């Protein structure tokens, strides 16, 4: 069931752990679990500290950084400091542009597409209207926002989500005695899965549809326990059956 989420791209470095229960992760819920949760890791927003080539030892060896490749500014959370409204607009434009370019490139290959360029643009404009969408993880009260347009595939997205929620602060590792092994989000081998709510309000498993279709229909993401998501998969299995054969 969940194995159908396999992306088939052989991303061995994909390490995404999901450790969340449903319900927005209120305190009461967490307290209800025995011992305080199935995971004890501290998620943390990416900051420059995650990029040791740039983060530490600033002044001392500033010149030595010339060799290392610095992180792209878009990989650091909340950086560059552009308001989210503006950021959404920006990424929408970029997505529209690249989608339009892709469509036109595809058009050249497929001769039976008779649409005018203008129509393609409009269609793309109508569809690609997203930017930051909310991500909630069970067990974490603090929701996040992730910029879908900054990602090109499910693996990308999964990596970002892992970084967001599971990168341990080096100072606190070992405090809880637990460190989650890298969990595979998308192939179903972990105890957590990534789900999303689409435009109709249905909750689906992520990975069933081609990426481009996914990003036009996703409204928000939620990471939930596999056990709870099992029902979800079963519910939506048949309608999705056909789509599963399409490349992700």
């Amino acid at each position, binding site marked *: 069931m969940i194995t159908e989420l396999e992306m088939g791209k052989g991303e061995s470095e994909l390490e995404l752990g999901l450790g969340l229960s449903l319900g927005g992760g209120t305190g009461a819920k967490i307290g209800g679990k025995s011992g*305080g*949760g199935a995971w004890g890791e501290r998620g943390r927003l990416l900051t420059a500290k995650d990029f040791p080539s740039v983060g530490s030892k600033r002044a001392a060896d500033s010149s030595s950084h010339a060799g290392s490749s610095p992180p792209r*500014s878009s990989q650091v959370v909340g950086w*560059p*400091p*552009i308001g989210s409204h503006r950021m959404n607009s920006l990424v929408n434009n970029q997505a529209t*542009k690249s989608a339009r370019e892709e469509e036109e490139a595809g058009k050249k290959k497929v001769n039976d597409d008779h649409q005018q360029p203008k129509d393609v643009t409009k269609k793309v404009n109508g569809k690609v209207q997203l930017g930051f969408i909310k991500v909630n993880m069970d067990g974490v009260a603090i929701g996040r926002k992730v910029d879908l347009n*900054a990602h090109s595939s499910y693996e990308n997205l999964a990596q970002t989500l892992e970084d967001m929620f599971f990168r341990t602060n080096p100072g606190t590792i070992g405090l809880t005695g637990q460190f989650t092994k890298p969990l595979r989000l998308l192939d179903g081998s972990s105890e957590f899965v990534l789900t999303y709510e689409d435009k109709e309000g249905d909750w689906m498993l992520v990975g069933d549809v081609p990426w481009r279709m996914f990003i036009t229909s996703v409204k928000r993401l939620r990471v939930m326990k596999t056990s709870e998501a099992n029902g979800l998969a079963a519910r939506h299995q048949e309608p999705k059956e056909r789509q599963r054969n399409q490349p992700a």
Partner: protein
Amino acid sequence: MNYFPEEVIEHVFNFIASHRDRNSISLVCKSWHKIERFCRKKVFIGNCYAINPERLIRRFPCLKSLTLKGKPHFADFNLVPYEWGGFVHPWIEALSSSHVGLEELRLKRMVVTDESLDLLSRSFPNFKSLVLVSCEGFTTDGLASIASNCRHLRELDLQENEIDDHRGQWLNCFPDSCTTLTSLNFACLKGETNVAALERLVARSPNLKTLKLNRAVPLDALARLMSCAPQLVDLGVGSYENEPDPESFRKLMAAIQKCSSLRSLSGFLEAAPLCLPAFYPVCQNLISLNLSYAAEIRGNHLIKLIQLCKRLQRLWILDSIGDKGLVVVAATCKELQELRVFPSDLHGEEDNNNAAVTEVGLVAISAGCPKLHSILYFCKQMTNAALITVAKNCPNFIRFRLCILEPHKPDHITSQSLDEGFGAIVQACKGLRRLSVSGLLNDQVFLYIGMYAEELEMLSIAFAGETDKGMLYVLNGCKKLRKLEIRDSPFGNAALLADVHKYETMRSLWMSSCEVTLGGCKRLAQNSPRLNVEIINESESNRMERNEEDERDKVDKLYLYRTVVGTRKDAPPYVRIL
């Protein structure tokens, strides 16, 4: 001592508009305090948790206009989690049940609900003006309440809010008797707009001066709207056709010709450049131009437009203008006072730097625009030499915000830190009130800031500094500092705790991903009853699990602010108030 009757004093006070001056007046003596209280019409509250609505109303019963700010500035960049706070509802409730005749409400970074908007619309018969900036939590249903119930509405200004667009008929909710609108801005709405309702509304609003449309208002509608509102001063254009038909274009041109009062242009949210020439006739009168959302307008189209805007005082654009474009701005816009250059490409897809701006553009602007006093500049690279030149050319900066996109990036020619460059800026610009620094920076820059930035009120620091000394230089030196926000910099407890009383002279301090620990924050809170010290840690379950806290734990986010009303009660569980 009063030698005049109270009425006379009150009359004199009414000429004093600035809230800072008003605050000063009220401190002179008890009698002035009392007089001032009862004639204060406008109140500005920079942090909604510094005071509560009950005390506000008690002190200023004749209040007509209230400005409230909620979340800290870094909330704009997704650094503040949801439900942190900033709820406007308690304020509206309190005002509603009092006798305050509220006429104007301006909110920034607050959570506003449809319920709040509905209550607002029903509670104040003379309500005239609603301005919401960077707010969230409401939908177009809330707007419908405002439209339906506020009989005397003049201004509805929605700037960069997150609004759930139910694609309802909120524009239809303005009754036919509503003819008082002077300002309508719904550019941030993402959904369809009832264009017919909009046209009718504009047609019956002869005083409409500001109109800012969203994406959904197409070109032909724009032409009709402008035809019935030739008195417009400030226009925000929605979307544009890629290739308009000649008839539409002609109509638009005819409409624009009549708009001789137009002084400010913005939007072009989904614009293709081919329609720009229709706007050429108004360019010579423009004092404000905001093309920062117009990703499609670039290159020669943009240059041609700018070359006509000789009276421009304010320009917001994308960095696709390039250094060459900025040289044109410098040559053309001699009246320029404020410039903002935003990044257009975040993912490094365009490796050719023709699309970006560099220190060259900045220097050109500083040399060409003698009246420049405010700048926000996103760029890929900078040099000390350029900053020193800019400082010499423009000693009049009051706002200088430079954002080099890559954290820790040094002077790209000398590979040194940019301390000297920023040092030159603060030394030359004696009136500097707001500063944002970036690039590779040591403690030295903060020494300069502490020494020279005597008027500095707001400082933003990211990925900078070396030791606690950096932060200490600033706290000790900048006497007028009100807001300090720091992220990803190595400042810790020693700096935080050196002068706790300093924070009572400031509005707020934000520190995220720095070196301050839980223990340090606790010590700070212990000595400061008039400060709220809030800690936001990322993982709630982590916090609940551990029975003993480790005071050596670093705090993810610290936000502290002065307050006269103690701990707030509406904080979510992951915000800990010490």
